[in-house]
């Protein structure tokens, strides 16, 4: 593994709760690691550690066996970030922004020109070279944000909510670009609370909540042990009773004229059905099937990812 994080703990000064608690995860070259969690889960704190904005309080972060702090001194451009915010200068043009960050990272002369051109091409910003960044659309700003991160051909790329506020076209473009980067051999850590994005591009997924890793693995691994039960009762007025009854087995929500239960332990299905029958509720429909990330998250935390 290229990146190895072990038992990382962090508490902001004056905060009651820890932002990160015993977080351990890893990422390999050529892999997109999806970091999934609601707001306040600890994703950005974790990223801030990787870019050197926060000092280690407890735990270890190593890259290819070397402590992160040492690597950052020796090769500061090894890791790059496209943060959630538009991390560039709004009054500078696309070209001026790229030129600035290229220069700060040590690129010079022909090599600098070559990399700037490559990033502009990758982000399809050719027609906007001389446009001030503040005049770009949301999608184009995201592309510029990403292209700055790619200037120095980093081996570990951190993308923090890179598709927030962009149109579907730009979102598709950005997701393709991320997959392309991984295919070229970079390790990509992709944080988002859009599970469909993570589901679509991540090779492995880490689900974070309240500073803890809830689960991690490939999508198949994570979803293998979880299922959902969707039931509707004949008598609509009994829906509240049904929801109350199902809540004892996992996260439950009303869906249409029925209820959706995220069943963390699929083996309990007979027990659930028996309980419904014992309560005298007549089912009109029952559908049992594989869950998705959203439902998995709900079953683990009893909360929605978008909370």
């Amino acid at each position, binding site marked *: 593994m290229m990146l190895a994080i072990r038992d990382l703990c962090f508490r902001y000064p004056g905060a009651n709760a820890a932002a990160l608690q015993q977080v351990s995860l890893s990422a390999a070259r050529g892999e997109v690691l999806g970091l999934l969690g609601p707001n306040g889960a600890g994703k950005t704190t974790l990223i*801030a550690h990787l*870019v*050197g*904005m926060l000092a280690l309080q407890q735990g270890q972060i190593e890259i290819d066996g070397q402590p992160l702090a040492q690597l*950052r*001194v020796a090769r*500061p*451009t090894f*890791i*790059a*970030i496209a*943060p*959630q*915010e*538009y*991390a*560039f*200068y*709004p*009054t*500078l043009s696309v070209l*001026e922004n790229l*030129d*600035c*960050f*290229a*220069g*700060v*990272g*040590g690129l010079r002369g022909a090599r600098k020109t070559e990399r700037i051109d490559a990033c502009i091409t990758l982000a399809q910003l050719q027609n906007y070279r001389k446009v*001030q960044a503040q005049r770009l659309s949301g999608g184009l700003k995201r592309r510029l944000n990403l292209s*700055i991160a790619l200037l*120095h051909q980093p081996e570990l790329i951190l993308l923090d909510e890179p598709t927030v506020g962009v149109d579907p076209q730009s979102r598709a473009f950005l997701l393709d670009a991320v997959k392309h980067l991984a295919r070229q051999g970079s390790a990509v850590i992709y944080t988002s609370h859009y599970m469909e994005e993570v589901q679509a591009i991540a090779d492995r997924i880490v689900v974070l909540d309240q500073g803890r890793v809830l689960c991690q693995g490939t999508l198949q691994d994570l979803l293998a042990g979880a299922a959902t039960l969707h039931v509707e009762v004949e008598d609509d007025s009994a829906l509240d009773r049904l929801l109350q009854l199902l809540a004892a087995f996992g996260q439950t929500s009303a869906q249409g004229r029925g209820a959706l239960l995220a069943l963390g332990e699929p083996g309990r299905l007979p027990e659930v059905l028996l309980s419904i029958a014992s309560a005298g509720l007549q089912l009109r429909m029952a559908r049992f099937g594989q869950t998705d990330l959203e439902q998995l998250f709900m079953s683990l935390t009893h909360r929605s990812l978008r909370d």
Partner: protein
Amino acid sequence: MFLALAKKELLALSRDLHGLAALFLMPMVFIIVMSMALKDVYSPRVQALRYAVVNNDNSDQTERLLTAWSTEHGAPAALGSDDWKDAVRAGRLKYVLQVDAGFAKALDNPPEGEHAEKVHFLAEPGLDQGLFESTRVSLVMHVARLRTEGMLALLGVQGDTAQASQAMFNNTLVVAERVGKQARPSSVQQSVPGWLVFGMFFVVAAIAGLFVDERSCGALARLRSLGATPATLLAAKVVPYILVNGVQAALMLAVGVWLMPLLGGDGLSLQGISWSALVLVLLAISAAAVSLALVIACLVSTHAQASTLGPILNVLMAALGGIMVPLFVMPEVMQHIAVYSPMNWGLEALLDVLLRGADVSAVLARIGRLSGFSALMLACAYLLFRR
């Protein structure tokens, strides 16, 4: 890395119209407006004061006194139907000369006591104290000349007693002059150093504003992630803004030297000054201004704070430091406080060079004080930045 950061800083500033206006336009406008407004304070135009005469003594001597006065101070305004006292009280007349009946007689034989016939100089309440005194002294001199003339005649001096009296007053055995390169400081020579220092310290708002933007959008985090150290980031802000201060200084001096005469004001004279002293003083002021700006930039967290705290601090330092109100008119307590304002150190250093003909050695103490302040501020900025 340093060059890329410095270039970025200058590019961002060049696109910040408000920042540019505060740095270049505002001090330039202040210099022009204040120089024109204070022109008469430094070069009083006594002839322009509107006055009237109430002559109750139709003697030859009084006529000669009033003729000499009008030659020197311009013709009197005609007294209308208004009560002249109301006109003086309301400021429509700056002063009135009232000559009592029997004044000419009193010249030769001054009566004793308070009720002697006199020339009354009655000024409006708002007349500047300096002008009041200079006009009063001028009147005293005119009257004294007439009295001397009468005394010479009484003593039996032959010939033209008026000419003899004039000759005595021409040679008063008193020589008054200002020591230094300039015969007399003009309002421009007072305004340019003051508002130049003020303008240079206005980098506070520009630096703090851009720094807040940089920090809040994550660009700063990105720069740090690329290996830019706090020292490099701070240095990359210091150098461009010292250049900006240099351009400001050149522009303000040019306004004083070339633009002010075109606008009808006095020109700033740079003849005979020590250029090396001027450059060193400007560098020291700039370093103080930029380092203070960095501390403010590290302290504020929002644009609103940056755009209010910086200008408020600037105006306070300017008011305390003798930029807005000359130090010599302040009460003693305020003058003691003023010496703690870096703007005052800069202003006095510039006045030393531009007005008092100081060379490098003469301003080293003030440069040292400004440099010490800069070093302290830079250290604070570094610690705050790291935090």
